[in-house]
């Protein structure tokens, strides 16, 4: 194996690593101005993104491809157990992860130049992004879990990087404790699977899944893995940390967590569970205690994940209904969205994966974008409560419109990407027939329920008049805020929000290029296996 073909595929990762190192180098040299650091970060992310898009063969960008066609979507040689493996769906996820990092770094460029902790922020951000990219190429359970940790550990620190803020530190503590517990559960699950299959390689596990000797061990192993990974995905009841963390973390970090890192959990679900879920009607896990022959591993896992999905979306929505704080409302909504995404792996067909992946893509734009707006308007005198947004849409038409658009997209209103993704996801559920249609019904009813709290925010933003107090405070805060361009948001943030908004509408109107690419990738993923 020559050096080029070994390093070539990892150009994006190397770019990010280089960016990280450069930032820490600048820190050491005392060059800590936010502009420089953000330029480095944005450049690294953009280059990585271009490279990934090139590998995906995205139009003229394909000249940037560093992967040869034979390296993508090819099954490894029989009996070999590679640690990593390139799939086009993985590349799609890499692109999504990089997009979320791009939005956050772009927005952060608007911070004051003497922002304390900036090098740590950018460095850890790039490091976490690097971990995310690794998740997307994993093909070994241990590699996967360690890659997730490469994301998690910088994330804990990112949440708490503003060391003087009690709320951030409390959030970091909660994040860490629940994260550590989940890590233990995941690894324990992996160890049980290792015991059952004698390997941690996902290809081999998939190949052996039907001939395993320790049925209960397998089920327990998958159970632990579900619980461990559910932490990242914020499935109910593994979700409780997420709200406090999204709330306590700096909003830009919340954007990254909600928009970016929770998606690695979903891809991990894809990797770990797609193989078993597709094992329909293959006797795998021994006698059922209820008679009727052997337990089918596939349907069993499918039902478990389906129940989790429905519980998650419902509880998340109900929790969000009467929430009074904006960030916590967004956090709860984020939880319920995770339920939708889980539908994809529950069904496990290429259309369903397409829908889920598109939903993930949409969520990066919608939730990431929304948190970026929230982060930006803090400087404009908008407090944490939803009621602090009174009259916001009228006072700041453009920002208001962008935020309203993100909320409408979250609610699944047509002409937005949020609608298209749900449409495809639920279409796939209906198309899969069987009991999956009930997932679509549950999902759709939930999205109807969710409209209530999004509409409430819109109501506050557009229909309520700001009281004199809020107006005065807002004016004072706006006056004392550092003079930033783009109406006080700063240009970088404005560009990030604008990019998200344009993509929301653009893909909502003409989704074909994006959906087509994702579907192609998902088909390979399903047919070729992990």
């Amino acid at each position, binding site marked *: 194996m020559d050096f080029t073909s070994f390093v070539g595929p990892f150009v994006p990762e190397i770019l990010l690593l280089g960016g990280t190192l450069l930032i820490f180098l600048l820190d050491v040299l005392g060059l800590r101005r936010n502009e420089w650091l953000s330029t480095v970060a944005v450049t690294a992310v953009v280059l990585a993104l271009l490279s990934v898009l090139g590998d995906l063969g995205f139009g003229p960008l394909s000249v940037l491809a560093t992967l040869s066609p034979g390296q993508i979507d090819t099954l490894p040689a029989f009996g070999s157990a590679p640690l990593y493996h390139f799939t086009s769906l993985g590349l799609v996820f890499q692109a999504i992860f990089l997009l979320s990092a791009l939005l956050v770094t772009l927005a952060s460029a608007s911070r004051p130049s003497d922002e304390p902790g900036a090098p740590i922020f950018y460095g850890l951000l790039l490091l976490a992004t690097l971990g995310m990219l690794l998740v997307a190429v994993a093909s070994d359970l241990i590699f996967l879990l360690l890659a997730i940790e490469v994301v998690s550990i910088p994330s804990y620190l990112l949440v708490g990087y503003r060391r003087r803020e009690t709320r951030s*530190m409390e959030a970091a503590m909660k994040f860490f404790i629940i994260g550590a517990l989940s890590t233990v559960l995941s690894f*324990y699950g992996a160890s049980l699977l290792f015991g059952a299959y004698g390997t941690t390689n996902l290809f081999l596990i998939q190949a052996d899944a039907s001939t395993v000797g320790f049925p209960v061990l397998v089920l327990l192993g998958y159970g632990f893995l579900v619980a461990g990974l559910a932490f990242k995905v914020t499935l109910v009841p593994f979700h409780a940390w997420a709200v406090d963390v999204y709330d306590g973390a700096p909003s830009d970090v919340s954007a990254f967590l909600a928009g970016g890192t929770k998606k690695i959990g979903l891809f991990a679900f894809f990797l770990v569970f797609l193989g078993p879920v597709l094992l329909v009607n293959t006797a795998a896990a021994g006698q059922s205690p209820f008679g009727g022959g052997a337990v089918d591993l596939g349907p069993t896992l499918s039902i478990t994940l389906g129940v989790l999905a429905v519980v998650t979306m419902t509880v998340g929505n109900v929790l969000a209904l009467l929430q009074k704080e904006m960030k916590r409302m967004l956090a709860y909504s984020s939880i319920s969205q995770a339920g939708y995404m889980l539908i994809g792996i529950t069904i496990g067909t290429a259309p369903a994966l397409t829908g889920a992946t598109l939903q993930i893509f949409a969520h990066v734009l919608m939730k990431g974008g929304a948190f970026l707006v929230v982060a930006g308007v803090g400087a404009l005198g908008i407090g944490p409560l939803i009621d602090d947004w009174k009259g916001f849409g009228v006072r700041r038409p453009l920002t208001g419109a962008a935020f309203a658009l993100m909320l409408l997209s979250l609610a699944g209103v047509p002409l937005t990407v949020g609608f298209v993704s749900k449409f495809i996801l639920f279409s796939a559920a209906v198309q899969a027939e069987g009991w999956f249609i009930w997932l679509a019904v549950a999902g759709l009813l939930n999205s109807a329920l969710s409209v209530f709290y999004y509409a409430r925010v819109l109501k506050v933003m557009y229909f309520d008049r700001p009281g004199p107090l809020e107006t005065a405070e807002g004016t004072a805060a706006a006056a004392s805020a550092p003079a930033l361009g783009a109406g006080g948001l700063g240009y970088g943030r404005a560009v990030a929000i604008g990019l998200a908004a344009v993509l929301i509408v653009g893909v909502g109107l003409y989704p074909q290029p994006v959906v087509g690419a994702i579907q192609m990738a998902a088909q390979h993923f399903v047919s070729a296996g992990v």
Partner: protein
Amino acid sequence: MTALPVAWFLALSGALLAVGIFGLLTRRNFILILIAVEIAMNATILNFVYFAAFATSGTGLSGQAIAVVLIGFAATEVAVGLAIVLGLNRLKGSINVAQANELKE
């Protein structure tokens, strides 16, 4: 050499895990929670080492290698945890996790 029966061994590692989780749930002291996590982690590491004896395929990562990696990883995790403990202690003057409940509902 007669291998330890699987069930027995699983009972051991399960007990270790349970102890760790129990500690995590009942302790309010951050440091003790960290220790509880490590105990639970050790159950995992023990599992890998034990199951390595059964792994016949011989491809991919071996159980022993995983165990070593995990020991290193656990150390990293503890380091990060301690950093957070320090930060929390400096701000709140306490490492009781139950007292950090400003964020709720």
